Each structure stands twice: as structure tokens, then as C-alpha cells.
């Protein structure tokens, strides 16, 4: 059975990391690229093989690797779980990961630390695979922490720049704040269920009644971990700053994979959430609020990557909304389609930045359509997909979430659609300002405009294809489809579906909702076109004064400043005071005392070395007398 070899899937990137990490300096860039991409490709092939196996027999298999922890009655084994959810994530991670690795060969070609980049990327894929393959919460946690580490390493890849280092620190520290909740959740799980293995925990959990306090506590603590990793309110501010890293990093980690770890975790623990309806409400509420909040910020950003970053936060909010209203399959579906078009958007943005000799401000772009034909076309496809226009991928996944939201709470549906409109508007604003109209950059930049190399454009084209057809994995019944994904993932969510009050929308209502949404989106796109193409409005320069509302939103609602005031400055002050008093006065004096004491003692001892022979003989005599007396008495 191919599933027995599932352990090879994370091992390939690990070997890639070791080889490139240890010997990268001695290998040529071509070889590093082949090893880096090749390891992910092998994992992709194996994942595909296992996927077809799982598709055929629909079972969940646990593959034990070794006994990991054995402390008294607490024993955890390092095992992998091969089931529909993990294998789907395997395909997303290795598939999109492979394309991004190939893209990086071209993008990072001129960077002197080329080998280090691929080593870190491979290490990241290793940890992410561990995260989704683990069959218990602790293996997931190892992967969870590992991807946080690699995120730090890759955001601060160009470590000579202090600002980038600060961004990397911010990401890591905020992740750790969330991780505290996660750890507490795992501890509570162990106390309640006596185990951390998914199978054992979930089997016991399904016999619990709904609404118990301990279940609410566990799910909320796990959700805190998810907000940190998946950048929801209040722990989202690290993601826009993480754009300091190279663009392939933004694509892989902060769009397609790491940030989806929170959704994976909640989808995996779906039974726990179904048994705590209050938590689901909170998850949905926070997700929806984040989706809208981030979308409004994205409306006014002028850095191409920052718009995409806030878009990611917003789309992650949609996924959490999906999880909160019980659309588990829809949320996972959206993870998949989002991975395709968001990775594509970031890679295409990277292509644009590359062509513009490092420029990232969209106010200085424009008219790039004729200079970068492949980039332009793929970016357009991704923008249409994210806006949710059928039959492109984003439509099906987003609509499934919105349909469930409508069943759950009509006001939530309304806000969700509002968010979709904002999404369409800011994405098309980005597209129009970058590719349409006249070129607004410098003459020097215009001379260097060039379409990117094949290693960069081929992944773009493949991702564009996936963005077009990706939605067909989940065609709902209303269109006569069989919703392959729902069927495939049904064993994972079976316990939840059984417990949840699943009201079903009539086909006509569903079609009407879809129709309303699509029409509203098209109207929004027309509005954006009018604004940015017909009227050729360009966002004002930073020095121009704008009305207070716009100014607040442009400055991201001053949330970073708020956090600085509430958390960072007091802790800095406290740390300064502790340093001045306890560190310098108390601890240093105690430690220095020992040094001074030794110095003083040796100074005294030195006085014996007088240099006079007579004195030495005298000392000998004294010594002999002392020995004599010791012997006698």
C-alpha cells in the first residue's frame, strides 16, 4: 500500500534542506534549484499516488513511525494520519509549493543567498507537511511551531535590513502569543479526553452533549492559536508587515500554506466545534469582522503586495466564517481555490516588481499590459477568480460559504456579500492601476521593462489554469454537479454533519442568491472600471491631505499604533526599569562580587611571592613544623 510510504513525503524536503543547507555553498545554482524543486516534486508525485488510493477506499489510515514520548502514563507516538483531509492538503502544499519553488529559481536568480533561500523553503515545506500529516495534536504542534520558525527565517531573509528583521520578529512573537492559546487548548484536551490522538479524542467527544463549558474552553483556546497563525483579528498585524520577505515567500507561506494551518486545525477538530455552538458563533463573527475590516484597509493601500496581504487576511476571514457557520467543506474548498489564485496573484506581483526594477507602488505603475503580456493575462484571471465570477474557481467556494451563511443568519450573508463587493473593487482597482492606462513610472524603469523568464511565467500559467478549473472540484447540486469535494471529505466531517441541524436551501433560493451576488460584483467591477480606467483616477501621493476617514483607513485604523501604546511601550518601559535596577544593580553586583572576591584573594596570595630566598626557607620551616605537629597530635 502506497500509504505506508507516507513518511517519505515530508522526508524528501527534509533531505533537500539538509543537502542544500550543508553543502549549498559548494553547489552550483542550477543544482540547488534542481534539488530544491525536485524534492518537492517527488513529494507531489507520492501525494498524488496516495490521493488516488484514498479516493478509492475512503478510509483513514494511521501510519506509526516511532514511539516518541513515554512519560509514565502519558505516551505519544509519532504517527501520520492519511485521510481525505490530510491528503487534500498534501496536494495543495506540494502542488502549489512545487510551482513556487520553480518560480523562485527565476526570481531569486541574482540573489547571492540563493542556496539559503531554497534550504529554508524546503525546511518550511517539511514542517508544513508534518503539520497536516500528524495523527495527534502534538505532531501538529511540532509542524505548527516549525512553520512559524521558517516564516521568521524567510521574512527576515534579507537580514541586513533592520526593518525586515523587525517584521520577522513581529510575525514570530505574534504567532507565539497565539500558540499559548493553542498549548493551553492541547493541555485541556489531554485533561478532558486522556489522549491527544485525533481518533481517540474525537471518538470520545462525539458522545459528549453539546454546549459544555470545557468544550467551549477548548475550542476557544484552539481558536486563539488559529487567530495567531491565520492572521485574524486581533493577531493579524504581522501579515502585512511580512511582505518584507521575498515575494515567493509571501506567495507560499502567507497565502497558500502556513496561514491555512488555522483552518486545517479547526476543520480537523470539527466535532469539538460542532459541540460548542457558542464557539462557532465567535469563529464566524471574528472571521466576518476580519474579512470586512481587512477589505476596507485594502481599498486604500498603494503597495501592490500590501493590497494582496490585506486581501489574504480578508479571504482567511471568509474561511473562518465558513467554518463558523458549519460550511466545513466550503471553508476547505476555499482554502484550495484561494491557494491557487492568491499564490498566482503574489507571483504575478513579483513578476511586476521584477520588471519594474523593484518598484512596488502602484501609483508609479500603469499601462504594463503591453509590456508584460503573460503576467497581465494571468493576473487578470486571478483577479476575476478572487472576485467570484463564475465559472472561475473563487465563485464556487465563496458561494458555498455564503449559502451556508444565509442559512445561519441572513445579516451575516449580507455582510459577506458586502465583503465580496469590497474584494472585487479593491482587486480590480489594483489590476487597473497596474496594467491599464498610461505608464506613470520613471523613464529608467520604462527602459528596463521586460517580461519574466520561463521559469517564472510557466508557474503563472499553470496556476491560472488551476484558478479557472479549480472550482469544478465542487460543483453544487443546483447546477447538476456531484460536488466531488464534499463527497471526498465526507468521512472527515461525518460526525459534525450528523449533529448539526442542516437546513437545506431550496435550489431556487440558492440560484437567486448566486445571481444577486454575481450581478452586484459585476456592477462593482464596472464602477471600478469607470473610476480607474475611464476617469483615470490615481490615488494621491502620501503628502496630499485627504479627508479624516480615508486617512484613518489608509493608516490601517492605527491598530499598530494602538498595539504599540497598549502592549509594546509598557513592556519596553518595564523591561527598561528591570534592566536598570535588577539587572545592573542586583544581578551584576552579585556576579561581579565573585569575580572581585577571586581577584582580592589572589592579590593577597601574591604577597607570599616576595622573591627573598630567606623568606622561602622560613616558609619551608614553618611547613615542616606544621606537618610535625599534625603527625604528633
Amino acid at each position: 500500500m502506497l500509504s505506508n510510504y507516507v513518511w517519505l513525503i515530508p522526508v524528501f524536503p527534509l533531505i533537500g534542506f539538509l543537502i542544500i543547507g550543508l553543502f549549498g555553498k559548494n553547489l552550483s545554482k542550477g543544482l540547488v534549484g534542481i534539488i530544491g524543486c525536485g524534492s518537492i516534486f517527488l513529494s507531489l508525485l507520492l501525494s498524488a499516488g496516495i490521493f488516488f488510493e484514498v479516493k478509492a477506499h475512503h478510509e483513514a489510515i494511521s501510519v506509526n513511525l516511532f514511539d516518541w514520548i513515554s512519560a509514565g502514563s502519558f505516551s505519544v507516538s509519532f504517527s501520520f494520519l492519511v485521510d481525505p483531509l490530510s491528503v487534500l492538503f498534501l496536494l495543495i502544499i506540494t502542488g502549489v509549493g512545487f510551482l513556487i519553488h520553480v518560480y523562485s529559481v527565476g526570481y531569486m536568480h541574482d540573489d547571492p543567498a540563493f542556496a539559503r533561500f531554497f534550504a529554508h523553503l524546503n525546511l518550511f515545506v517539511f514542517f508544513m507537511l508534518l503539520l497536516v500529516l500528524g495523527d495527534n495534536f502534538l505532531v501538529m504542534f511540532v509542524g505548527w511551531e516549525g512553520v512559524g520558525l521558517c516564516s521568521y527565517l524567510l521574512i527576515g531573509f534579507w537580514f541586513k535590513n533592520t526593518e525586515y528583521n523587525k517584521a520577522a520578529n513581529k510575525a514570530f512573537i505574534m504567532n507565539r502569543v497565539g500558540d499559548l492559546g493553542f498549548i493551553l487548548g492541547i493541555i485541556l484536551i489531554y485533561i478532558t479526553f486522556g489522549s491527544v490522538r485525533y481518533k481517540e479524542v474525537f471518538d470520545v467527544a462525539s458522545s459528549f452533549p453539546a454546549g459544555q463549558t470545557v468544550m467551549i474552553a477548548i475550542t476557544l483556546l484552539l481558536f486563539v492559536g488559529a487567530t495567531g497563525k491565520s492572521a485574524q483579528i486581533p493577531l493579524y498585524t504581522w501579515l502585512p508587515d511580512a511582505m518584507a520577505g521575498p515575494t515567493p515567500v509571501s506567495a507560499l507561506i502567507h497565502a497558500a500554506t502556513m496561514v491555512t494551518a488555522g483552518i486545517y486545525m479547526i476543520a480537523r477538530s470539527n466535532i469539538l466545534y460542532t459541540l460548542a455552538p457558542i464557539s462557532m458563533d465567535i469563529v464566524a463573527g471574528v472571521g466576518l469582522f476580519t474579512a470586512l475590516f481587512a477589505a476596507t484597509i485594502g481599498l486604500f493601500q498603494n503597495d501592490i503586495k500590501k493590497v494582496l496581504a490585506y486581501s489574504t487576511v480578508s479571504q482567511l476571514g471568509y474561511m473562518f466564517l465558513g467554518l463558523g457557520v458549519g460550511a466545513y467543506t466550503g471553508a476547505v474548498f476555499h482554502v484550495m481555490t484561494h491557494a491557487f489564485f492568491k499564490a498566482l496573484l503574489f507571483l504575478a506581483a513579483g513578476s511586476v516588481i521584477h520588471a519594474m526594477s523593484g518598484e512596488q507602488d502602484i501609483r508609479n505603475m500603469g499601462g504594463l499590459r503591453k509590456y508584460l503580456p503573460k503576467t497581465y493575462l494571468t493576473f487578470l484571471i486571478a483577479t476575476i477568480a478572487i472576485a467570484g465570477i463564475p465559472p472561475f474557481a473563487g465563485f464556487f467556494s465563496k458561494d458555498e460559504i455564503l449559502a451556508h451563511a444565509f442559512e445561519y443568519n441572513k445579516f451575516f450573508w449580507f455582510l459577506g456579500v458586502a465583503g465580496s463587493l469590497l474584494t472585487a473593487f479593491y482587486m480590480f482597482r489594483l489590476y487597473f492601476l497596474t496594467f491599464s492606462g498610461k505608464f506613470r513610472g520613471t523613464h529608467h524603469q520604462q527602459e528596463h521593462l521586460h517580461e519574466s523568464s520561463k521559469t517564472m511565467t510557466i508557474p503563472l500559467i499553470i496556476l491560472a489554469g488551476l484558478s479557472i478549473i479549480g472550482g469544478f472540484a465542487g460543483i453544487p447540486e443546483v447546477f447538476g454537479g456531484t460536488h466531488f469535494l464534499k463527497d471526498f471529505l465526507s468521512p472527515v466531517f461525518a460526525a459534525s454533519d450528523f449533529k448539526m441541524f442542516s437546513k437545506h436551501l431550496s435550489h431556487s433560493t440558492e440560484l437567486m442568491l448566486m445571481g444577486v451576488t454575481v450581478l452586484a460584483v459585476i456592477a462593482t467591477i464596472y464602477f471600478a472600471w469607470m473610476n480607474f480606467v475611464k476617469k483615470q483616477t490615481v490615488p494621491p501621493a502620501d503628502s496630499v491631505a485627504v479627508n479624516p476617514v480615508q486617512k484613518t483607513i489608509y493608516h490601517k485604523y492605527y491598530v499598530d499604533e494602538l498595539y504599540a501604546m497598549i502592549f509594546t511601550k509598557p513592556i519596553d518601559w518595564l523591561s527598561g526599569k528591570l534592566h536598570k535596577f535588577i539587572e545592573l544593580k542586583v544581578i551584576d553586583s552579585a556576579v561581579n562580587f565573585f569575580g572581585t572576591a577571586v581577584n582580592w584573594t589572589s592579590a593577597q596570595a601574591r604577597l607570599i611571592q616576595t622573591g627573598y630566598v630567606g623568606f622561602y626557607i622560613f616558609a619551608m620551616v614553618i611547613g615542616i613544623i606544621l606537618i610535625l605537629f599534625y603527625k604528633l597530635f
Partner: protein
Amino acid sequence: MSSIQSVHINLYILLSTVLFCIGVLGVLFRRNAIIILMSVELMLNAVNLLLVAFSSYWNDAAGQVFVFFVMVVAAAEVAVGLAILITIYRNTKSTDIDILNKLKN
């Protein structure tokens, strides 16, 4: 042998101790290197005297055999000591040991 028996062993001990102490004081307080060597010899001979006295007292020849060893060692040591003394004299034109204080601090 009766003349030796007639003297009490304590007197030998006393004499030996006094000679030894004079030797020690000589080593400690005299500045002339030759005198110091002579005092060392005095100490050694005091010990020899005691060994011989007790060898006769216990009728054990081991003490006298040990005295031979001590005399040999004393002779060798004096040879080396005088050689060092001559080297010092050649370098400092004096036998005063207070001049040899270059190893201080």
C-alpha cells in the same frame, strides 16, 4: 660499650635537638650562602647523631645503615650546592643571598 650505655638516651636526644635547632636558626638568619650550607650540614649531622644513638639503644643496625645513606646524600647535595654558589658568585660577585630577589611579584 658500657661507656656509651652509661650516658642516658635523653641526653643524646637533647644534644641532637639542640644541634638541629642551631642549624635551622643558622639557615634562617645568616646571609652568607656558605654559612647556610654549613648549617644545613649541621642539621643533617644532628639527625645522623640521633639515628646512631637510637641504633645503639635498640641494638638495631638499621639505624646505622641509614646514616650511611644520609651521609652520601649530604655529600652529593653539598657538591651541587657549592656549584650553584660558585655560579651565583660569578654572576653577582657576592655570596649574600638577599641580593637574589629578582623573582618577587
